[in-house]
């Protein structure tokens, strides 16, 4: 998964398929507003192509990257559980 372009930077990419683009777009809008808590040392970009949510991190240190990914996965799981529990009634 890692393909560093800057030799000193770690990179991590994640692709998450959703049932449709509608759900993927909701997820990206729910997950984007909060920036990474640290001031520097890590960047995160989120995007949606069709039904796939793509996330890419670049970081200076593996430690920082690990924490960011772990917390993102917790957030992602919560958003998906919320959709499963409360999303059925609104097709669009």
């Amino acid at each position: 998964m890692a393909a560093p372009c800057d030799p000193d930077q770690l990179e991590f990419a994640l692709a998450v398929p959703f049932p449709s683009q509608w759900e993927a777009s909701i997820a990206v809008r729910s997950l984007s507003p909060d920036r990474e808590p640290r001031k520097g040392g890590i960047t995160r970009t989120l995007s949606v192509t069709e039904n796939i949510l793509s996330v890419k991190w670049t970081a200076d240190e593996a430690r920082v990257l690990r924490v960011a990914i772990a917390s993102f996965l917790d957030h992602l799981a919560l958003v998906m559980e919320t959709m499963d529990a409360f999303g059925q009634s609104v097709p669009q």
Partner: protein
Amino acid sequence: MTIVIGFEGSANKIGIGIVKDGEVLSNPRRTYITPPGQGFLPSETARHHRGAILTVLREALDEARLKPSDIDCVAYTKGPGMGAPLVTVALVARTVAQLWGKPLVGVNHCIGHIEMGRLITGANNPTVLYVSGGNTQVIAYSERRYRIFGETIDIAVGNCLDRFARVIKISNDPSPGYNIEQMAKKGKQYVELPYTVKGMDVSFSGILSFIEEAAHKMLSSGQCTAEDLCFSLQETLFSMLVEITERAMASLWLSGGPDCNLRLQEMMGVMCEERGARLFATDERFCIDNGAMIAQAGWEMFRVGQITELPDSWITQRYRTTWR
């Protein structure tokens, strides 16, 4: 008719409430309680909220007998509070707002307490003493805004009590403050503590350091009991709060004041009586963090057209009390 659902989770409670034009339709809540001697840490608290939030949301809707389509607006706590728990709650609020196609409103937690207090007590234009584990402020509405007239310059009064409870291993169930209040009733001896009012502001961290040291020495030598220390700490802290509230009132000629510690209410009552002011207090359903208070403040904001666009719906650990 406007129905607002409010999500609160800035500290160790996760609460979701539904308010319809001043009527609380449901207000379920869960509290993350840690063992004696331990406080609640951000990541563990967030984990607790993640585990409970969807159940609480289901309860809120069922109790209110509402469907998501009946709701007009989704309010959530934008701050202030602990980062990780705030994010957890904001994520669910943002997601359901989009799933249900409803506008989102980010609410200042402190304003939530004030608006709930106004709703429950019917107080028109109060001076508010807002005290909790994270905040200590004397607030009043002046010249088109809520303004802070006095506040703590270091830790909150609740934080001082909570941390003292940890030092002498008082239970966190239902809350350290409640248990200190019960023990204080059995205190017989007043242990002199520093008294640190600075104009309209107060400082608690030095009192905490002092009593931490005194507790170890005096308890082991049998000079006083844990109950005496609870009593002395409460009397000192609350006198300071009464003093700054009185000073704010003197400059405003108004009245008010919440919090569910009965001793604090009693002390405020005496002061208000001497000044010919009226004391309003709320009970634990509404003065402890809950979802309905966020719904109520959100209801007020939604009615005047203040909504939060998703890109602006980030949470913030620091957030001044200045809405309206």
